[in-house]
């Protein structure tokens, strides 16, 4: 049944309106498909700053760096025909909320009836500009980044430096080792993945890296990158006074949200992302929700009922799709038919031959318990607890258990878990502190950033990360 609206304006929008999507990556593409699935027959325009067809990023740090898949072979499959106008290779530079117009870098502008913002994030560059420009210094976010880095790895550098041992940095280190390259990983936290998974699991990740021959240095920062007279990277200086000779450095210091173009728009956009309600409608700077501007994907910050209505920014593949689908549905639906975005955070990483998966929000946790398997065997399931309930779980090569824990999280099941587990080892008998770093200290980006206050507990406040 077509949605009814008092003045018929919704039908008109669905029939002949103009919807503009700024951000032509995973979230933008899936939103566009959903709009057509929902029966939107008006004009659909996708704007993307990269010149490429929407492509998938997770393979870039894995298959592509390993040389199994060319960097330009990760284009996302279409779920359906789109009949869209594409403005690729041109960035949006401004938004006029009153005139309902998006300004583009080529001087053009697009008028919209509804706007969806899916501009995502970009890699945070090495903060020192001259050093960042040295030949041999890379970031890894786009397929062009991956193509360049892959080419350089093919040349067989004597040593690769990975700065920051978050998921991307760890995956890059893994690919380098698999290719037989010498790798030094420098992480300012106490262990790899510590910001995302805490110290207990971080310790396992550290052992994994060292077993695979990574020269891992934790609790250390890179203080400077030095080039030779030809401007080629020669070595890195570390905060412990040591120097590492490297030909390639990959900066894995997390991501920056692409919101600068909205700076004077009046939209509630900043370094943490764009705040929106559970229905993906953007807030303006006054904290009033807009009715024609929607947000989805990595750039969005939305309140999650499972986690005390805190605003979550999730740089997660699955979140981008789920949120895009909800946003698209809501853009062409009347208010009573709108849906909330209540996706349970989930992500995966493959590194050093291990499949790591997580569900929920581990950085919220204060305690962790190993419920199955064994940390020493790198094959386990661990549950995270926060104030007596399960709020996250992580598996190393035990993905099959994750769905069970997802239900536990969604039902706010008690922590420590009351069920008897199939395979409980001594280390799993008692919860221990989850050991997350102080969130106010900068580190490489955890994949989940929490901010704002939960109504039931005002203690939790996660600050944005800066390089």
């Amino acid at each position: 049944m077509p949605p009814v609206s008092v003045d018929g304006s919704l039908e008109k929008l669905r029939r002949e309106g103009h919807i503009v999507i700024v951000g032509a990556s995973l979230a933008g593409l899936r939103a566009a498909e959903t709009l057509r699935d929902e029966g939107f027959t008006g004009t659909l325009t996708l704007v993307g700053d990269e010149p490429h067809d929407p492509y998938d990023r997770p393979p870039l740090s894995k298959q592509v760096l390993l040389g199994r898949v060319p960097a330009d072979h990760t284009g996302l499959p279409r779920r359906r025909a789109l009949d869209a106008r594409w403005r690729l290779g041109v960035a949006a530079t401004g938004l006029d909320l009153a005139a309902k117009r998006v300004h583009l870098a080529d001087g053009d502008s697009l008028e919209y009836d509804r706007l969806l913002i899916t501009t995502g994030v970009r890699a945070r560059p090495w903060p020192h500009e001259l050093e960042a420009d040295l030949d041999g210094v890379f970031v890894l976010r786009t397929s062009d980044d991956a193509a360049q880095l892959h080419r350089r790895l093919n040349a067989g550098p004597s040593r690769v430096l990975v700065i920051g041992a978050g998921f991307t940095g760890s995956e890059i280190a893994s690919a380098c080792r698999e290719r037989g390259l010498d790798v030094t990983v420098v992480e300012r936290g106490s262990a790899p993945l510590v910001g995302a998974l805490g110290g207990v699991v971080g310790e396992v990740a550290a052992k994994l890296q060292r077993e695979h021959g990574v020269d891992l240095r934790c609790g250390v920062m890179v203080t400077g990158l030095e080039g030779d007279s030809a401007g080629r990277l020669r070595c890195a200086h570390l905060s412990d006074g040591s120097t590492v000779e490297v030909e390639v450095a990959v900066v894995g210091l997390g991501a920056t949200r692409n919101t600068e173009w909205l700076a004077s728009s009046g939209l509630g956009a900043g370094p943490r992302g764009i705040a929106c309600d559970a229905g993906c409608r953007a807030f303006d700077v006054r904290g009033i929700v807009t009715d024609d501007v929607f947000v989805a994907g990595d750039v969005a910050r939305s309140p999650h009922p499972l986690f005390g209505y805190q605003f979550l920014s999730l740089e997660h593949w699955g979140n981008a799709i789920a949120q895009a689908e909800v946003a698209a549905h809501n853009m062409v639906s009347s208010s009573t038919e709108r849906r909330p975005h209540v996706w349970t955070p989930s992500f995966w990483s493959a590194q050093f031959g291990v499949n790591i998966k997580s569900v929920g929000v581990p950085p919220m946790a204060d305690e962790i318990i190993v419920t199955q398997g064994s940390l020493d065997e790198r094959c386990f399931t661990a549950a995270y607890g926060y104030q007596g309930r399960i709020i996250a779980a992580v598996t190393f090569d035990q993905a099959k258990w994750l769905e069970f824990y997802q239900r536990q999280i969604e039902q706010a099941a008690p922590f420590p878990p009351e069920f008897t587990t199939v395979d409980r080892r001594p280390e799993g008998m008692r919860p221990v502190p989850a050991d997350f770093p102080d969130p106010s200290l900068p580190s490489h980006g955890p994949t989940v950033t929490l901010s704002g206050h939960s109504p039931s507990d005002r203690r939790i406040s996660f600050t944005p990360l800066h390089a």
Partner: protein
Amino acid sequence: MRLVVDLNRCQGYAQCAFLAPEAFTMHGDEALMYDPQPDDAQREHVLRAAQACPVKAITVEGTDGALIAERAGASRVG
């Protein structure tokens, strides 16, 4: 042909790697590594793999009816 695997859903059952080894391989015990753009000659195998996946994690372009991949470039404006 283009494909993507929802690795949140994938549980590493490896049916796909068995049915279309050119496109899907296991990396370690549980991690799936796939070719997002396998050769069209693999189409039969890939479609069979997608169908066999117990958690329906594999999306292959052009399996819903008659969609022939329209490339962004073809309809690019401006």
